[in-house]
């Protein structure tokens, strides 16, 4: 077990095996913080301050196990980033299977709500916490064929705004970061022609960069950002 330095923050980031989650885990480790990450697959990220859980975020028992570790190891959590999400194949609403709807809602909505519930309880002990829920520009653009994914991201946005009002007096803020399309496995699954058509609606028409996400997150997780809550930050000039 490493020596825990209390002047650094404890991050819990979901979906850290690849994409934005992996980037954020490395980014916050590089600045000396402690990161607990999880994904359904193994992680090859090796760092003394990183702990990876190979878990299903949509399984409540798995989530509770992660929090049990955090309570034991760190006794606190400073920042929760609900990043894990699935973006199913583009499909018109008339063809969505029940299983597809169920799986997408479990990962994109049920999971972040359970993570938030447990994080709020832990954060409330220290009267400090920062919750980031990741959304998407899809909420603004309302793209054909993305009704399922978009509806989950709209839901997480509304949920975050409501909880921000509930938890404010516990010293906890909750905000939404909604990136533009960033080159990841998730965006690679999307029809590239459709993706560029959607990007053309943004002020910035090129793909976004990872640093856009960390810059926005740094702003809202700052200890000085205690009054910035219930906000949705769209990246890319949406």
């Amino acid at each position, binding site marked *: 077990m490493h020596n825990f330095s209390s002047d650094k923050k404890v991050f819990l980031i979901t979906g850290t095996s690849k994409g934005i989650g992996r980037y954020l885990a490395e980014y916050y480790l590089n600045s000396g913080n402690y990161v607990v990450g999880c994904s359904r697959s193994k992680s090859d990220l090796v760092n003394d301050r990183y702990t990876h859980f190979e878990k299903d975020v949509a399984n409540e028992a798995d989530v*509770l196990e992660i929090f049990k570790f955090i309570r034991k190891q760190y006794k606190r959590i400073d920042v929760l980033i609900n990043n894990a999400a699935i973006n199913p194949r583009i499909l018109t609403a008339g063809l969505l299977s029940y299983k597809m709807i169920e799986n997408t809602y479990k990962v994109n909505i049920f999971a972040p709500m359970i993570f938030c*519930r447990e994080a709020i309880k832990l954060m409330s002990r220290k009267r400090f916490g920062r919750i980031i829920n990741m959304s998407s520009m899809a909420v603004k653009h309302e793209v054909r064929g993305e009704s399922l994914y978009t509806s989950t991201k709209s839901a997480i946005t509304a949920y975050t705004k409501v909880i921000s009002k509930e*938890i404010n007096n516990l010293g906890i803020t909750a905000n939404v970061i909604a990136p533009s399309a960033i080159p990841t496995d998730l965006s690679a699954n999307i029809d590239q022609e459709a993706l560029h058509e959607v990007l053309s609606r943004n002020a910035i028409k090129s793909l976004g960069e990872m640093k856009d996400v960390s810059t926005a997150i740094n702003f809202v997780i700052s200890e000085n950002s205690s009054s910035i809550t219930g906000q949705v930050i769209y990246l890319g000039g949406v």
Partner: protein
Amino acid sequence: MNTLHIIFEAIDEINLSLEDVQMEKNEDTVIFGNESVLDSMDLVHFISLIEEKIEDESGDYISIADENAMSLELSPFRTVKTLNEYIKNLL
């Protein structure tokens, strides 16, 4: 495990964060409802303190969140006594 003692310890801690009024340490103390000194977020904090103390003592985490938590009639958090009975049933 002395669950009533755990609840009383949590009351001691929650009192540190209450400014105007304090929770009394007895079995009739109202935890949730009009007569409670706790608002809904204090209640979340209070519950998390109890969960933490149970975990520290037993090594097991139990979630004492309940869908009836905010129900005036059904909530296990009505009084210290009902909460104590509820936790004993969970353990």
